[in-house]
């Protein structure tokens, strides 16, 4: 497979995963913003998913609709959802001969959907949840289409490697965003809704309820997001899947390149596996999350260097 093609497939998957993650966190945050007495504070989220300056963040930080508009539809905001979908489509367009026609059409439809007037009107002046649901559903359609139509070859492996790497980064980020909002102080009685919304954003609330009978505790929520092997958004699960798809690339890899990446993925997995979460040590938790993110970014950089021929 061409290095450029592998690069594009990998990034197409990353942008699609990022889109899904953002849509879900925006959906739960928007709902929670409607459910509170005081103004909902979007600042932490904006710091992560907006490249606007402090002035703009402060100006819109307490206006839910304006935040949604900015994070979903603002072309001038680099990380906005519409830009992510556009980039996913551009990457898909550049590798149309390596993804199936169905996957390409699905991406293309996604692009046309978010540009549709009724979606934009719903977000700006109607019911944003309806619009978000429609967008999330199109994303689900993409995942199903990939699963059903794509051959299990090199392209599929890069696609999944990109997807799980991005998902691990997203889970670490979302946990970090929520804990930052709580100032990493988990000893004081934590506000329960905050943790519930975090689980909602990661599609993990139902699993939590089934496992812990509704007893919402910070410690257990973090355990699920970091370690739970049955939770498809946990960092451990994502890393294990990343390794699984990466190992399938071995026959088509140059041996020295393969060893470099295998080492980095293995190290990240072990660092997560042999860590201890102590909710009384906020600072330690923060450091752990930051280190994990660094390692994930290191893996992405190594793919770029050893497999995509970019230095």
């Amino acid at each position, binding site marked *: 497979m061409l*290095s*450029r*093609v592998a690069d594009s497939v990998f990034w197409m998957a990353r942008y699609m995963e990022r889109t899904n993650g953002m849509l879900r966190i925006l959906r739960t945050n928007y709902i929670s913003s409607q459910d509170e007495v005081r103004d909902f504070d979007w600042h932490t989220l904006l710091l992560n998913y907006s490249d606007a300056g402090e002035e703009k963040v402060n100006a819109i930080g307490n206006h839910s609709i304006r935040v949604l508009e900015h994070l979903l539809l603002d072309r001038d905001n680099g990380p906005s959802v519409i830009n992510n979908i556009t980039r996913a489509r551009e990457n898909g*367009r550049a590798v149309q*001969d390596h993804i199936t026609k169905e996957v390409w059409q699905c991406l293309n439809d996604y692009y*046309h959907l978010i540009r549709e007037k009724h979606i934009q009107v719903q977000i700006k002046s109607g019911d944003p949840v309806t619009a978000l649901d429609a967008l999330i559903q199109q994303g689900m359609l993409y995942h199903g289409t990939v699963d059903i139509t794509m051959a299990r070859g090199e392209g599929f492996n890069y696609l999944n490697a990109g997807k799980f790497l991005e998902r691990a980064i997203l889970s670490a980020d979302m946990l970090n965003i929520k804990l930052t909002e709580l100032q990493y102080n988990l000893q004081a009685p934590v506000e329960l809704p905050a943790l519930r919304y975090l689980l909602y954003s990661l599609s993990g609330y139902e699993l939590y309820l089934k496992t812990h009978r509704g007893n919402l505790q910070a410690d257990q929520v973090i355990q699920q997001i970091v370690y739970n092997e049955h939770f498809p958004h946990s960092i451990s699960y994502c890393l294990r899947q990343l390794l699984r798809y990466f190992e399938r690339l071995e026959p088509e890899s140059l041996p020295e390149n393969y060893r470099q990446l295998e080492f980095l993925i293995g190290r990240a997995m072990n660092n997560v596996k042999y860590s201890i979460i102590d909710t009384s040590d906020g600072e330690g938790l923060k450091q752990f999350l930051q280190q994990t993110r660094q390692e994930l970014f290191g893996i992405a950089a190594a793919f770029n260097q050893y497999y995509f021929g970019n230095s």
Partner: protein
Amino acid sequence: MEAHTLLSKYGIDDRVWDEMFGREGIRPAYRNMVSAIESLSADEMTHKDELAKKLFMSQGITFTVYSSGEGIEKIFPFDIIPRIVEAVDWEHIEAGIKQRLKALNIFLKDIYHQQFIIKDGIVPAKLIYSCPNFIRQMVNVNVPFDIYTHISGIDLIRDHDGTYYVLEDNLRTPSGVSYMLENRSITYRIFPDLLPRNKVRSVKDYPDLLLKNLVSVANRQKSDPTVVLLTPGMYNSAYFEHTTLARMMGIELVEGSDLLVDNHKVYMKTTSGLKQVDVIYRRVDDEFIDPLVFRPDSMLGVPGIYGAYRTGNVAIVNAMGNGVADDKAVYSYVPAMIRYYLNEEPILKNVPTYQLENPENRKLVFENMNRMVIKKTNESGGYGMLIGSAASEKQMEEFKRAVEEDPRSYIAQPIISLSSAPCYINGVLQPRRVDLRPFALYGPEGIDIVPGGLTRVALKEGSLVVNSSQGGGSKDTWVLQ
């Protein structure tokens, strides 16, 4: 009946050949199709029209216009009423194109080798050497199987009496074949059962034939040569076509930066190292293909690829330097070439063409400018062209001045009226002018022409310009069995 309102406003012009209506009413080829859509209400027709647009949009058969910051997705306008070619006409066209391509291909070999045609005084040397697309680097380069014009699109038009004329030969990187394929796939979606009932010949073999030819020009003794399609990239207006063809043939779609040349061999950069490339179907123009030999500022090509080609380590399709054969001034010599090389009379006629280098021709053309089309010899896409009947005095004066300054770069032809075909516009059928571009594939085993082609249509009323860049659209083209 509804249908007769559909047809009632169909006004035909006696000076124009209409593909559907003749003196005796609807021509036999169209009868079946007309009776099928007769029973449809205006609503149903409009619904079909909208469905076609939606299908093009969702399949991404679009090109992006970047005029206003954010890209606007546009579809290449498609008219739902097919253009129908009868079997007997097709036989004539097929034979004519094959003959023409044989002669043009020998001409290219001759002009880049011994140049007998110049020595025998058939084609003036000055005409060839003054042609900007005559590539000196191709002189004495041997190309695999002596084939230059692997893929060509020959533009045909019909005069008022229905005679077919060749308007242009496109021998470099002709585009539009994906629209031939996609238009067909849209037609069977919007008109179920209509294709088999009319015994329309299939066009779906095109990618297989093309791949077979590409594989067979590979030089290495290898059962499975590596064939790639070289595209200028996703911002090219024909990018959709490049991806479609690569996908249909199952070959790698590469950009210039994916390839490199080492020791006169071409390699592509893959995740598992370098892999040698044997055949390149390039959609990058000659002047951009190798910055070391042609335009040094080109980012689309591959440095050193010309050397690899010359050495015979890679086959490039179409050959470089074909522009000298589809130059608009060289065009007028094609009938002479057919007589000279093949000793046959041309089957398809040329449009009479006046070389404006000749002062007598110039005088004649200037005196009759309102009945002439003046074209720049090295431009295409409907640019650099003046249609006398539709031009203002000022435009004519400007063109006259330009011609006087550089007569070699211009030719003139009498205006051929172009036949008309029914189009579904604003709820009724209306005649619009059309041309026809069949695609021919020249391989070691001979020439194949899939029965069909791209019918381009001038959607503006009265317009004679069918180019997509100038408001033209396209139609599905049926060749009947």
